[in-house]
C-alpha cells in the first residue's frame, strides 16, 4: 500500500477512536477534560520513556493512563476540597502537569528522539516509516497496529459499557440509585481518553488531538437525536476528516494533522449551518415560512 493510503487509514483510526470517547466527554460537558488529559499525560509518557529507555508504546500508554487518571482525580479533588470552580481546577491541574512534562522532556531527553515539536503537532507524515515486523515479514506501519488496537478497545468499551456510560452522562443520580458506580465509570472513561490520547500522540500531537476529541462529536450532535447514531456518525465524520485532511495537505503541501483538524472544523460549520434539525439555515427558512403562513392567515 502506498504511504498516502496508510496516512489516511492511520488518521481515520485516530479520529474514529477520539470521536467514540469524545462523544461522552461532550455530553457530560467535560469537553475540555480531553484538552486537559491530552496535555497532562506528557510527564507520564516521559517518565515511562526514562524508565524503559525506549519509545515502546505499551509502557508509554501505561504512564499516560496513570497520569490521565491522576488528572481526573486531582481536578475533582481541587474542586471538592480546594473550593475551586470546575474550570479553574482543570486549568490549574493540566497546565502544571504539562509544564512538568516539558521540563522533563527538555532536561532529560534532549539528546534523544522525543522532541517538543512532535509532541505538540505530531508527525503523521512519518508514521508509515516506522514498520512493525513479524520475524522478517513486514506487517505495515507500527502506528497502524497500535491505533487499530486503540480503536478496537474504544469500540468494545462504548458498546459493552453503553448503558452505564449513557446513564452516567444523562442522569448520574439515577445511575447511582440503580447501583451503577458513577465514579468507576467516570475514571474508566478518563482512562480510555488517556490511552486514546497517547495512541494519537505521535500522529497528531497533543494539541490537535483535542480537535478530534471534541469537533466530530459536536458535529454529530447537531445531526442526530439518538446517542448510538451520534457515536457512529462522529466516528464516520472523523474518518472522513482524515481523507479530506490528507487531500488538503497534499494539495497545499502542509501539515496533515492540522489539515485533518481543519476539515473536521469545516464539517462542523456545514452542520451548524445546514443540519435539518439544528442548522441555522433550515431554522431560518422554517421561521420565515411560519411568519408567511400566519400573515396569509391574518389576511
Amino acid at each position, binding site marked *: 500500500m502506498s504511504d498516502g493510503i496508510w496516512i489516511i487509514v492511520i488518521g481515520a483510526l485516530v479520529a474514529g477512536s477520539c470521536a467514540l470517547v469524545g462523544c461522552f466527554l461532550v455530553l457530560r460537558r467535560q469537553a475540555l477534560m480531553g484538552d486537559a488529559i491530552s496535555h497532562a499525560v506528557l510527564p507520564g509518557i516521559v517518565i515511562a520513556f526514562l524508565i524503559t529507555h525506549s519509545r515502546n508504546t505499551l509502557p508509554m500508554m501505561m504512564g499516560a493512563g496513570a497520569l490521565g487518571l491522576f488528572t481526573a482525580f486531582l481536578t475533582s479533588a481541587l474542586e471538592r476540597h480546594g473550593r475551586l470552580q470546575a474550570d479553574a481546577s482543570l486549568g490549574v491541574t493540566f497546565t502544571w502537569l504539562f509544564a512538568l512534562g516539558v521540563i522533563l522532556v527538555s532536561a532529560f531527553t534532549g539528546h534523544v528522539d522525543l522532541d517538543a515539536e512532535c509532541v505538540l503537532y505530531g508527525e503523521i507524515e512519518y508514521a508509515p516509516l516506522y514498520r512493525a515486523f513479524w520475524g522478517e515479514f513486514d506487517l505495515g506501519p507500527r502506528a497502524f497496529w497500535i491505533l487499530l488496537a486503540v480503536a478496537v478497545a474504544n469500540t468494545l468499551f462504548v458498546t*459493552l459499557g453503553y448503558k452505564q456510560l449513557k446513564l452516567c452522562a*444523562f442522569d448520574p443520580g439515577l445511575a*447511582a440509585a440503580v*447501583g451503577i458506580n458513577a465514579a468507576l465509570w467516570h475514571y474508566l472513561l478518563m482512562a480510555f481518553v488517556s490511552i486514546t490520547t497517547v495512541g494519537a500522540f505521535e500522529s497528531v500531537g497533543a494539541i490537535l488531538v483535542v480537535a478530534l476529541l471534541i469537533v466530530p462529536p459536536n458535529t454529530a450532535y447537531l445531526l442526530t437525536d439518538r*446517542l448510538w447514531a451520534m457515536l457512529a456518525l462522529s466516528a464516520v465524520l472523523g474518518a472522513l476528516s482524515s481523507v479530506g485532511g490528507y487531500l488538503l495537505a497534499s494539495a497545499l503541501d502542509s501539515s496533515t494533522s492540522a489539515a485533518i483538524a481543519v476539515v473536521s472544523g469545516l464539517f462542523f460549520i456545514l452542520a451548524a449551518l445546514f443540519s435539518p434539525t439544528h442548522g441555522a439555515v433550515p431554522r431560518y427558512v422554517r421561521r420565515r415560512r411560519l411568519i408567511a403562513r400566519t400573515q396569509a392567515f391574518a389576511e
Partner: protein
Amino acid sequence: MTLTSNAPAAPIEVHDLTVAYHHRPVLWDVDAAFPESQLIAVVGPNGAGKSTLIKAIMGLVPLASGEVRVFGKPVNETRRLVAYVPQRESVDWDFPTTALDVVLMGRYGHLSLFGRPRKRDREIARQSLEKVGMQDFAHRQISQLSGGQQQRVFLARALAQQTKVYLMDEPFAGVDAATEKAIVVLLQELRAEGSTVVVVHHDLQSVPEYFDSVMLLNLRLVAFGDVASTFTPENLHKTYGGRLNLLTEVGEKLRRQEWNARQ
C-alpha cells in the same frame, strides 16, 4: 439500637440521620418511619434539607451519622426497591435520546452488567408511558417535550422501575393544572396498589387535599404524622418561622375547612 419487633418493617426508616455539606449540617438528627401505602408530603422552607433527605435515603449523599433502612435492610441491598424521581432541572434535556429511551433507563437496575434491555423491558417501558398518557410521544427527542411532559416521562421512568417505594423531588414543579391532576391520580393509583410515595412538595395549600401524611422539615424534623393532626398552623409556624403572609393564608384555609366540617 436494634430493631427486634416482629411487626413488618416500615418501607423506609431513618435513624439519627445527619448530613453535612462542607462541615455545615443540612439535616440534623432526623428520626422517622414512613408508613406503608400512603402518600407522604415532605414540606419545609428552601434549604430545609428536603431534597437532601430524599438523596440520603437513596444513598446518593454521604451520611455524617445515622442510618437508612428500606424494609428493614440497608439501602445498598435494596436499591431496586426504591424508585427515584429527581428534580427535572437535574438532567440535560438536550441529551440525544427519546422519551421511551429515558423510561427504559428505569429498567437498567434490573439488567446484568453487560445486559441489554429485552423485549419485556421495552414492553414495561411502553406501558409506563401509557400510564402517564405519553405513548404518542415515545419517539420524540426529549427537548421537544414541554415541562409537564418531561415531568411525566420522569414519572413513567419511576413506574418502569416497578417498585413499592417512590421518592419524588418536586414532581409538581412547573407543571400545568391538568398535568398536576393527572399526576395526583397516578399517585393515588400507586397508593391503591400498596405503594408508598414520598413527595417533596412546595404548595402548602394542596397538602391536605393530596396527602395522607406530612413531614415538616427545617434542618431538624419539626413534626411527622397524619395530615389532620400534624398539618396545623402551630407546626407550620415552627417550620417556617416568621413568614406570616403565606402561613396566615394556609391557616385561614385550614380553619375554614374545620368550620365546614363542623357545619
